[in-house]
């Protein structure tokens, strides 16, 4: 017993303290998870189960929410429906039980694809520009360096609506309104400030001696950057990319104000999924679930890298 305690530091918390702390944290985690689990359950409920009172925890799973998410339907008379052939697929048969027929695909898939293109496009651009600038700021003597860095950071203090007013006018003038390119450029400009700050932190930690050794061996500065610094910075670049991706994936204010159809992403689209007589909650829940799943998977897989990015590179050990 004594040997066991001396092996530890005297400041190690006791087993009781640990158990007590653990149970409080677990309690908080469970409470905080309830809304998320609830929305995922709702995605698999029928519309009646979704709005029943008291709320149903046990229910018969239904794919109606997903069907309503992916299709548009039109109400028909029972006679007309009987005159049709057998239902085409699961969604059609679910719709027919409610005196409806599937009229065509909904806009969810195009919106989701827009989200993918805009999020990945702006992430690649922001990380590329950010890596170059971060290296520049980290290694070279740049006049007014601190002012430029602060300027880059201060662009994040603008309320998005304030930025959206002139962007709206500018895009209207140069024809970038409601285009994916316009949204990619806009998200890149928002993300690049984060990228520069995060990546500068990572590159600062790579010893200069590595590049200097490579340059003595005959590499140019640029070759040393590509072949020595970039491989060393991979973790940092990956962590930065995750954050840019999460921002662009989740962004709503610019998307709702600057896009209407062509380049609209999923966040402004999901809240306007309506059925007959108000929001179609199972369909909204299904759209939400599909939209959240990639981020949940990302978070769980990449949790180790998240800490530094979240703290904006300002928290350095």
């Amino acid at each position: 017993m004594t040997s066991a305690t001396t092996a530890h530091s005297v400041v190690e918390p006791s087993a009781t303290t640990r158990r007590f702390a653990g149970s409080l944290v677990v309690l908080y985690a469970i409470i905080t998870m309830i809304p998320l689990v609830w929305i995922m359950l709702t995605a698999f409920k029928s519309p009646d189960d979704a709005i029943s009172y008291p709320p149903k925890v046990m229910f018969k799973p239904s794919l109606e929410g997903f069907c309503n998410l992916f299709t548009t339907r039109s109400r028909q008379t029972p006679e007309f429906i009987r005159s049709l052939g057998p239902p085409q697929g699961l969604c059609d048969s679910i719709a027919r039980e409610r005196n409806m027929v599937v009229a065509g695909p909904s806009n969810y898939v195009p919106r989701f694809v827009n989200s993918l293109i805009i999020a990945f496009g702006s992430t690649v651009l922001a990380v590329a520009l950010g890596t170059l600038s971060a290296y520049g700021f980290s290694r070279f003597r740049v006049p007014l360096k601190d002012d430029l860095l602060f300027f880059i950071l201060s662009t994040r203090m603008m309320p998005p609506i304030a930025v959206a007013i002139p962007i709206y006018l500018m895009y209207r003038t140069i024809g970038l309104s409601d285009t994916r390119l316009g949204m990619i450029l806009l998200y890149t400009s928002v993300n690049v400030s984060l990228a520069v700050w995060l990546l500068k932190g990572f590159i600062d930690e790579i010893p200069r001696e590595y590049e200097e050794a490579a340059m003595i061996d005959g590499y140019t500065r640029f070759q040393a950057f590509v072949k020595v610094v970039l491989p060393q910075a991979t973790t940092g670049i990956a962590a930065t990319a995750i954050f840019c991706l999460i921002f662009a994936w989740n962004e709503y204010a610019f998307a709702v104000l600057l896009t209407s159809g062509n380049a609209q992403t999923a966040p402004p689209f999901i809240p306007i999924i309506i059925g007959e007589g108000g929001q179609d909650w199972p369909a909204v829940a299904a759209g939400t679930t599909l939209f959240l799943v990639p981020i949940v998977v990302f978070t769980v897989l990449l949790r180790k890298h998240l800490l530094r990015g979240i703290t904006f590179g300002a928290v350095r050990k």
Partner: protein
Amino acid sequence: MVRPGVARRIRGLSDRALAWLFITPTIVLLLAINIFPLLWTIYLSFTNYRANRANVPMIWLGADWYQSILTDPDIWAAMQVTAHFVIWTVVIETVLGFGLAYLIDKKFRGHGMWTTIILLPMMLSPAVVGNFWTFLYQPQIGLFNYVVAFFTGRPASSFQMLGDVTLSPWAIVIVDAWMWTPYVMLICLAGLRSIPDYIYEAAEVDRASKWRQFWSITLPMALPFIMLAVLFRGIENFKMFDMVNLLTGGGPGSTTEVASITLKRAAFESWRTGYSSAFAIILFVTVFGLANIYVKALNKVKSR
């Protein structure tokens, strides 16, 4: 990787040229998409321009908009709503976030997994979160009302979180706290982990009580981190738009109309572009000014 021709051309570049080559694209992008629009906003804020009537000749108004905004009681009401939202979310998130970080720092078994689970809400889209919380807040069918009814015995349909003048400002605070407490928790955790063990060991040797250790070691040493979290949350919530827009849209009436919603209504619903530009500039200057004062205070605490 690098073709010889390119390599030769780049070999000729001095470090100085390379530095500019690396930094310029970022600066150009920020100038085009952040600074040029900002200057344009400043210009428009002195005119009567309306984006939906682009052909009406522009009239220079000087500082008229600024004067009318700063004396408008509706604007001050919006600023009060914003202040209520910012102060309460920051207080709740800091207390809960620091508490959680303190508990997680006890390194109980499985703390890594539970930390990840707690992180999830802050990774999600605020708009989508706001939208699904309107479902939880439904008076008849919502889970939130059911749970409150279950514990308090009040009927679930007797109160409307989003439709009631006194409750709706708290409805948005609850969702923001749910979403962003983990963020404060992470920064505080980084702070707690930066405190070296030997300080506690020395305190143990001096027989300082745990209570004393908390107040004289843990809290002061984590304070810069807590203040940093407060800064980040304060700036973000001052700009808050998406979550509130979907939860309440500023309503009922204007009880949850935070500054960004007022701005959006003026700019994109009544199309008073000049007026809203002036308001945007006022908001930007406010955030910028407050943040600068705060950073000075933060640096003082850090250097202590």
